[in-house]
């Protein structure tokens, strides 16, 4: 009876496993690895010796050897994890610093110049214009229920007008009932509900905030973006007030030579609704590529609060009326600074950030 090269495998394996256990540092492990599982190990040598066996025996022996190798490799991996953890603990310990003992006056603080982000700055400028006009600034959550983002805004479930927003759904509750807000308009609903609950009408507020649409980012769109929403609910508010507020804002933010105009549009939560356009800030109304030669560019949407929205929040439409408007904060910044590609805003390249002051 011929002897198989694997006759001593059990003992050889045991020896290897013991060797693994005896390793005490990562450096040792690195050094020993070739001799345990690597090219210079007994396992590799045995592998080579299988060549002398006939096909059937080779297959059986190969499987046996493979099993042993798996076991040793697993032990090695486990050992490596233990040693890494130890090494990290040692490194952390030697790194320990009691931050309560920091002598601040002795710390050398590098001097560097900071820069505001475009979105934050633009938002502040817009807020300041509206605060000057008498608006307060409100905020709302970014994760909303279907009710606030859609239904209370007169956009019933499955209504075709939902196609106007590509929506990210959040895995909470029933499918498609929780969303990342697609616009800042749900804040309108919160404001009106609170005003009704606290008996604190009228409302004159703007609500800036982050919004999300399931749209692959390109030069003109980001999936995450910011809007600013405005809402007035008061007595005797008409479309004339809406047009007046838009005009006052346009002059205050873009300058006295930039005009605004309204044209009919559809939004489920306002009626009558309008898209508002301003004189193209690139060509100042002469006509250029940015404005498709029209001299005007679209800025946002607006309209008188739809009676269905007022009744959804329990406001008496015979006593109160109001309007809402909304537009993109990035778009304002983009127009002012002529930013060719919006994606620069989320790349946080300090060469880009460093241009804002």
């Amino acid at each position, binding site marked *: 009876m011929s002897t198989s090269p694997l006759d001593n495998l059990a003992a050889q394996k045991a020896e290897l496993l013991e060797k693994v256990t005896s390793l005490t540092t990562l450096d040792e492990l690195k050094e020993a690895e070739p001799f345990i599982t690597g090219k210079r190990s007994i396992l590799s040598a045995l592998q080579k010796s299988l060549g002398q066996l006939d096909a059937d025996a080779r297959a059986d022996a190969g499987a046996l050897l493979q099993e042993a190798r798996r076991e040793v490799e697993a032990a090695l991996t486990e050992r490596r994890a233990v040693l890494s953890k130890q090494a990290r603990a040692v490194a*952390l*310990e030697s790194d320990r*610093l009691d*931050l*309560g*003992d*920091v002598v601040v006056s002795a710390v*050398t*603080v*590098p001097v560097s110049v*900071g*820069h505001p*982000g475009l979105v934050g700055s633009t938002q502040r400028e817009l807020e300041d214009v509206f*605060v000057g006009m*008498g608006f307060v*600034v409100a905020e709302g*959550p*970014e*994760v909303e*229920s279907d*009710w*606030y983002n859609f239904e209370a805004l007169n956009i019933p*479930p*499955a*209504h*075709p007008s939902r196609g106007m927003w590509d929506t990210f759904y*959040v895995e*909470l*509750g029933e*499918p498609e009932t*929780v969303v*990342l807000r697609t616009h800042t308009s749900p804040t309108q609903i919160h404001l009106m509900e609170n005003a009704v609950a606290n008996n604190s009408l009228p409302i004159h507020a703007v609500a800036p905030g*982050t919004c999300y649409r*399931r749209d*692959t980012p390109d030069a003109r769109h980001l*999936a995450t973006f910011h809007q600013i929403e405005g809402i007035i609910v008061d007595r*005797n*508010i*008409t479309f*004339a*007030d809406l*047009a*007046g*507020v838009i005009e*006052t804002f346009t002059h205050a933010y873009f300058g006295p030579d930039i005009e605004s105009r309204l*044209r*009919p549009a*559809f939004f489920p939560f306002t009626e*009558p609704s309008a898209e508002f356009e301003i004189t193209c800030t690139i060509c100042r109304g002469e006509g250029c590529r940015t404005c498709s030669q029209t001299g005007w560019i679209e800025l946002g949407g607006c309209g*008188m609060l*739809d*009676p*269905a929205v007022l009744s959804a929040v329990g406001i008496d*439409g015979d006593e109160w009326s109001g309007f809402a408007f909304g537009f993109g904060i990035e778009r304002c910044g983009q127009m002012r600074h002529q930013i060719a590609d919006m994606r620069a*805003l*989320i790349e946080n*390249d*300090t*060469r880009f*950030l460093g241009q804002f002051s």
Partner: protein
Amino acid sequence: MKISLSWLREFVDITESVEELRLIMDDLGLVVEGIERVGEGLEDVIVARVDNIALIEGADRIRLITVDAGNGPLDIVCGAMNFEVGHHVPLAPVGAVLPGGFEIAQRKMKGVISNGMLCSARELKISEDHQGLMILDDLITPVVGVKLMDALSMTADVVFDITVEGNRPDAWSVEGVARDLATRFHRTLRSPKIATPNVKATTDSFASAGIDDPDLCGRLTVSVLRNVKVGPSPDWVAARLTSAGMRPISNVVDASNLVMLELGQPTHPYDAAHVAGKTLRARRARSGETLETLDGVVRELAKAGRGLGDTGEDCVIVDGDDHVLGLAGIMGGASSEISESTTDVLVEAAFFDPMTIARSSKRHGLRSEASNRFERGVDPNVALRAVGRFVAVLSESVPGLEWMASPLDIAGKTPELPVVELRDNDIERTLGIAIPVKESTAILEGLGFSVSEKNGSLFVIPPSSRLDIRSGANGRADVIEEIARVYSYRRLPRRSPSWPTPGGLSQLQQFRRKVRDVCIDLGMNESWTPTLGSDEDFDLVHPGAARVRITNPLASEESVMRATTITGLVKAWGKNVDRGTGDVVMGEIGVVFTHPDVTKNPHNTKGGVAGSVTLALPEETERLTVVLGRPKDDATTAVAFWNALATRLNLADVVVRTLDAAPGFHPTRCGALVDRATGAVLGYVGEVDTELVHVLAPTATNRRLGLIDIDLAALSDHTMAIRTSQFVNVPSRYPSAVIDLAFVTPVSVHAQDLAHALRSASDLVERVELFDVYRGTNLPEGTRSLAYSVRFSSNEATLSDTEVSSARDALIAVAVSLGAVLR
């Protein structure tokens, strides 16, 4: 929707220029997204006959062609090879300007003069064909010298690409757009030619129809057309469809499409020979039924979908064997399609419940020109008029066409038209201007509304094409918008409203601005990092924790809502390091999200259908996170940054307490920011965990990265983070005395606590500042030396040596009481 000017002109006279018309359509809310000019630049192109083809010496890719275009022989150099002597081709003579502005000039090539250009169809923007010259003999019987446009019966035309707003079901048709223009212009709206049934035999002798579910199908008309000969459409029909961006298919299908574009009513023609029992019924699909639609996909019907209230209802058309023929109003099935052998046609013209169509179309991911119209609400009364138009159009190519008398017309449930009352001052109350009753009545009547006046109110009933008009107060707003739209928004007044309450920012908003400003002053570059990230990144800081997930992310790396701003900032910093611009401080004030299951403060809100249930949404908290990545930055500069920030925010006494771990922080280099008085933890300071740097900014492995991560709400809350008094001290006019005190202090006593104790030990203490920490083997185990500089002063007088000395003793006594020993 694409509509050509010439088509509009069949319905209404238009004298305005294209640019004027564009402005007017925009002003009517029919937004023109684009204008395409057809046949522009073809005025100078004429028909020429090829009389001779000669080779040019030394050239194998161009030839010398002699043509006759009515004025004798003309030599043209040409690269195309697809024609022979005797063929007629388009010639752009010298001086012609082709579409796109290319001007033809006399040119010399290989020593030969070319007097113009022979053109391909693509060069003339007639079709995409670029296989060679356009051979006119294939299309017409050409006459030499005739203008190409005349030869091809082409007219220059303008196609408007219009976006139809969601509340304008009527504007999904040429007639609807024309009606708006006619009303604005005070011109007459013309109707196209409408046929009537032309045989005595009644439809019920041939076919039958029914509605099983009147809530899904509001009206089903079935007409029978006989003696149909399927073939190509007349040129004008093909041209109209092409201009609207549709491909001509056959006269029957084209007539159906033309009518849909023209009047807004989708119709569906069936080959009667393939409809069992010549019967069409509309009913609810049953669970388990399937349909193979024309696009070859087998669809499961009546299967509940995702989303609120989608029970899976589908309306289907079935035949006499109750076999499903098509998804009503969306897409037909293959079995009863019109083919070349079709002779009898059943034409279905119906009204389907808009919401049912919308849900089915969304659930099956099927959009068609028909479903687009049905889901917005097709005029329930236009069905048979549309069939009349269908027949009129089809008759042109099928002279013997028969339309059987008394088409089947089954009624289901159609929406009731509201009567909207416009009270005396409603228009003024909404628009801020009183539009004369005469003018508003004329506008409404022009749009097809019926108007009657009673007791000072106008009672308005919309046309059946305007199912978007609601009842009551909602309808009032709808009707006023119609009046304002045609009256023109530009004519409406503007007024600047004012109110007595001042505008302003909340305390949190003002505070947030201040924090941001101070951080920027201290060198922070304000960043904007993603809210949505990967599971891997999430697990780096919150391993295994519950997380808020997006159901339909754009990519798996963007499927989890962040629970920290640290990972995003470290990544952003790492990219800057890669670019060689990483020696910076980056920071962000951003919202992070905690799953409602694992927070004590879920955001409970109204949700569900009609807001009838309470939903627990994620807690949203704002973090101020600053990552300090300059070459000398580490935990100590982070502490220095924090100290400067705390000073500028007037925080009374927030101390740094060493901590074993905080999410994302280096475990042995981090501390909690604790308000001494309230014990509130406001955030953490220290360094970014080395493992985090290694994974997120691999090229910066081993660089120390200072880190501050603060709960903005806690920081802004004056009951958690106590502020210094707003009453300030006027510094003493008398000289102050400065002494140094060093104490061997147990490590259990915080340096800041000892400083605080020293500060409170005497009224004379003006300031206590730690200036040195010494650890050494010569000190007892478990201690270190803390050296403070103490400044004494008094507002009353210059301090005497005795006063300083006794104050010093008081301080030492306090220190001793804490276990410290003067060194």
